């Protein structure tokens, strides 16, 4: 036990000694959350459009003024032929052309469909600004849990999941591979420490680093972005730490499999980055995906954490409401740790 404690202390000192890496570990999540929290939003503002005014009536001029006034669009110029429209689209100058034909009060939109998400937003907003026929005028809508449909409330919890996952996995994924590469693993194997103790000794100090990161992202989400906090703070910290633990264990697993730091990095970054962003429900709703992708998304830890943290923050859920997510994260952690201990290289090759 004394050897184990000594090992943890040594690992801890290793982390603290490398000031530059430590600063990066603490600093990056803060910078990223601040940057993305502001930059990632799906409301339309100042989108580049052009107008094609064939009618040239007071009516059409008023409509163009309305487009310019809303703040949603930036009118980059005027066109008067189909070839000009094509030219502008191909050069990426504008995303949509609003056509006012000569016959009557109609308006026609030609939208660049090569970015479908943007195209849908553009037409929806333009119709909202120009159309007199609003479908379903008799509908009164209340949005529960996120009344203003604020982008920050939608994306900040998701960002926490993506950032915590990646930064935690990166911490541990090269811990053993580094010892393999620099040759110190030999010394470690000759010590009286059991594989399980080595694995735990590598993971535990980083859990403390993760604790600091959980704290900072929480403070930023609350103080800077005003994300509502309807649930219990203790529960949120508990679930976030559990999730960071899952990520650390996954990193550990990668480091027992990979032979070089480069392989470990390609696995933990090249293999995790896009799935965590795309299959966790952070941007694209999981319920829309084809069945097979929904099935695959079950193995993405971020998916479960995101459900839990949105529920705690926005819905004020308690432990009973998110029991399933907590159990799954705990199960994943146990699985990753067990496999790491089993696969631990007792012999050098």
């Amino acid at each position, binding site marked *: 036990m004394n050897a184990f404690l000594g090992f943890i202390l040594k690992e801890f000192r290793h982390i603290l000694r490398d000031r530059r890496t430590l600063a990066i570990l603490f600093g990056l999540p803060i910078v990223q959350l601040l940057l993305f929290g502001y930059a990632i939003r799906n409301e339309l503002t100042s989108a580049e459009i052009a107008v094609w005014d064939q009618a040239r009536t007071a009516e059409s001029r008023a409509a163009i003024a309305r487009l310019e006034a809303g703040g949603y669009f930036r009118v980059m110029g005027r066109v008067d032929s189909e070839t000009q*429209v094509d030219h502008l689209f191909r050069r*990426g100058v504008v995303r949509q052309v609003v056509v006012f034909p000569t016959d009557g009060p109609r308006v026609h939109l030609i939208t*660049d469909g090569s970015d*479908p998400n943007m195209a849908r937003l553009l037409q929806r907003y333009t119709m909202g600004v120009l159309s007199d*026929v609003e479908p379903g005028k008799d509908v009164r809508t209340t949005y529960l849990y996120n009344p203003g449909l*604020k982008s920050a409330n939608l994306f900040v919890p998701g960002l926490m999941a993506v950032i915590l996952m990646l930064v935690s996995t990166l911490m541990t994924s090269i811990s053993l591979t580094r010892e393999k590469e620099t040759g110190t693993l030999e010394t470690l194997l000759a010590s009286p420490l059991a594989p399980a103790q080595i694995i735990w000794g590598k993971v535990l100090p980083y859990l403390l680093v993760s604790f600091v990161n959980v704290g900072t992202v929480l403070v930023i989400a609350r103080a800077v972005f005003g994300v509502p906090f309807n649930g219990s703070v203790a529960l949120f910290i508990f679930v976030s730490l559990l999730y960071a633990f899952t990520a650390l264990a996954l990193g550990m697993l990668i480091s027992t499999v990979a032979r070089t730091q480069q*392989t470990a*990095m390609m696995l933990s970054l090249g293999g995790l980055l896009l799935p965590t962003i795309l299959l966790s429900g952070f*941007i694209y709703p999981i319920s829309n995906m084809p069945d097979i992708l929904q099935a695959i998304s079950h193995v993405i830890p971020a998916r479960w954490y995101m459900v839990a943290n949105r529920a705690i923050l926005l819905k004020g859920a308690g432990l009973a409401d998110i029991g399933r997510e907590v159990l799954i994260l705990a199960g994943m952690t146990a699985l990753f740790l067990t496999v790491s201990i089993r696969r631990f290289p007792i012999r050098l090759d």
Partner: protein
Amino acid sequence: MRILRFILVKEFTQIFRDKAMLPILFVLPVVQLLVLSHAAVFEVNGLRIAVWDQDRTEESRRLEQAFRANTYFEVVEGVQNEAAANRYLREGRVNAVVMIPRGSGVVHVRIDAVDGYTAGIADAYIRQVVASVWPPAIGPDTRIVSGRFRFNPELDDKRNMVPAILVLLITMLGAFLSAMNIVREREIGTMDQLDVTPITRAHFILGKLIPFWLIGLGMFGIGLTVAWAVFGIVSAGPLPVLFGTAALYLLSVLGLGLWVSSVSDTQHQAMLVAWFLLVVFILMSGLFTPVSSMPEWARHIAQLNPVKWYIDLVRRVMLAGAGWADVLPSVGVLAVFAVAWNSLAWWSMRR
């Protein structure tokens, strides 16, 4: 020249010696391209709603029937009071509750907005259904807005996602490989050995760049083949433009990676910094949320993002059929990135 050949042979041997590396370089990206391209589905289907009809008139029953007949919705039974409505929403059993109060001619809708995107779509669909049953009055002066989509009339998300994900994959491949490389030589001490050989700095950098550059271009070709064979996506614009710009783009990404590598003390640091840059590049590339929607300062930062420029360029070539003349300004920007980052790498390697 002879020296460069030796270095290239050595670098290639080193890359492919690690048996785990080959599948990581070529299989992992292809699998991700195949799987992740399906993830971006903004079309919302199977919205679960409950209809709570308090009115119970001919009118309200017609509305309820319209919801049942609509394929976007799946009507869930059992919400006939306030408590049930709240419970179903909180437990996520329904996305929305549509309530038709007695005799008011108005529909009240409560939507679970934890997922704000789905919530907005649900609202729009519900309004459409209501409008189809209770059509709004149209006079002779009512302005009607209609629209069509160019280059991708069906708004097929895959035609956008497949090229974009391919760009992300070759970016990650190039940036991570190059970022880990020089610092690795330093960490395991082989850098000192190189110092005493006749290898010059130019040889050294070229020896590092060329293998990764070829691997990246190879991956780009494989990806375009997969896009054509599996997804049936063929570029509307000329292929030489795609490959020519890919070569330039990879050069800039590799230069950035080498720069990160040459200023880092350890592979761990290089990895963290490369990760930071890549996540910033990817999330601010305009692929997921529009660049024009960012606050102004963030839009300026996005101008320094090579991924943003290149995804936009590839999208315009592959979908809108743009040629050299159309993409020239973007090519200029990529060239500036390539020169700047490779010079920085060159300069900081002196130490």
